[in-house]
């Protein structure tokens, strides 16, 4: 029986810039930042109030996960904003929106009341998009 999810991956174009985005802008905590040799860096962060879920900020490079061609294709797709990797929750969406906007984060949808709650959409520094929600 599966009991929990421990890791989830987000593919990013640049791990240094992703570190700045997720840690310094979104306020996530660094869980593991380890050099694995040959340019591989294992970088995981956790949402501030969810320390048990590690989000792996995975670089798209030829090697373990991708061939040269598939890495190039994946980078293009990420840049284009093809992937929506998840939904983040916050306690006060208007305060969170104002703060992230002030930090220069690009929103593709301002907070709007929907039948399921208030929702906004924003992009990370690579082009991945996320929903930001506040439960009703």
């Amino acid at each position, binding site marked *: 029986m599966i009991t929990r999810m*421990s*890791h989830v991956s987000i593919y990013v174009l640049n791990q240094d810039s992703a570190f700045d985005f997720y840690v310094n802008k979104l306020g996530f905590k*660094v869980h*593991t930042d*380890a*050099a*694995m*040799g040959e340019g*591989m860096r*294992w970088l995981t962060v956790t949402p501030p109030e969810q320390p048990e879920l590690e989000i792996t900020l995975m670089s798209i490079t030829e*090697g*373990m996960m991708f061939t040269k061609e598939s890495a190039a294709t994946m980078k293009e797709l990420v840049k284009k904003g093809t992937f929506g990797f998840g939904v983040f929750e916050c*306690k*006060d969406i*208007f*305060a969170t*929106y*104002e*703060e992230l*906007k*002030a*930090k*220069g984060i690009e*929103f593709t949808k*301002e*907070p709007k009341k929907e039948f399921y709650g208030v929702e906004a959409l924003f992009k990370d520094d690579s082009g991945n998009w996320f929903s930001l929600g506040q439960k009703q």
Partner: protein
Amino acid sequence: MYILSTANYPKVNLYRRIVKAKLFIDNNYSKNIDLDNIADEASFSKFHFIRQFKKIYEKTPHKYLTVVRIEKAMQLLRTNIPVSEVCYEVGFESLGSFSGLFKRITGFAPSAYLLRQQHIKAQILKTPLNFIPGCFAEKKRLEEKKQY
């Protein structure tokens, strides 16, 4: 530096002023700031400001400032900076009050936290594959074998 939103929703100005004060704390935690500075930043009376801040962030501005300072201290300790240096770097004036608050919030004395982080770092350097999930570690081992 900051870009104000163009969104329009109820109490938009109140939100902007409180967020501005929160960002003021985030950016000035290392200085000798007090509640008056922070309330001034948000253009509120002190009492009204504390109430509104707590409503949004579930902490008083003072408690929030303390948490920011301790979290920054944890970050600096992870980079091997000595405890006494970290204490002043994050805005405390006395090592005693820094150590006491650090222990109350994290459960560790700053020096014990520093040692623990140094130990984890050494372990990562020694056995990096133990720190990543099994499937990736296995793949990495196979990749390494391929090169020989």
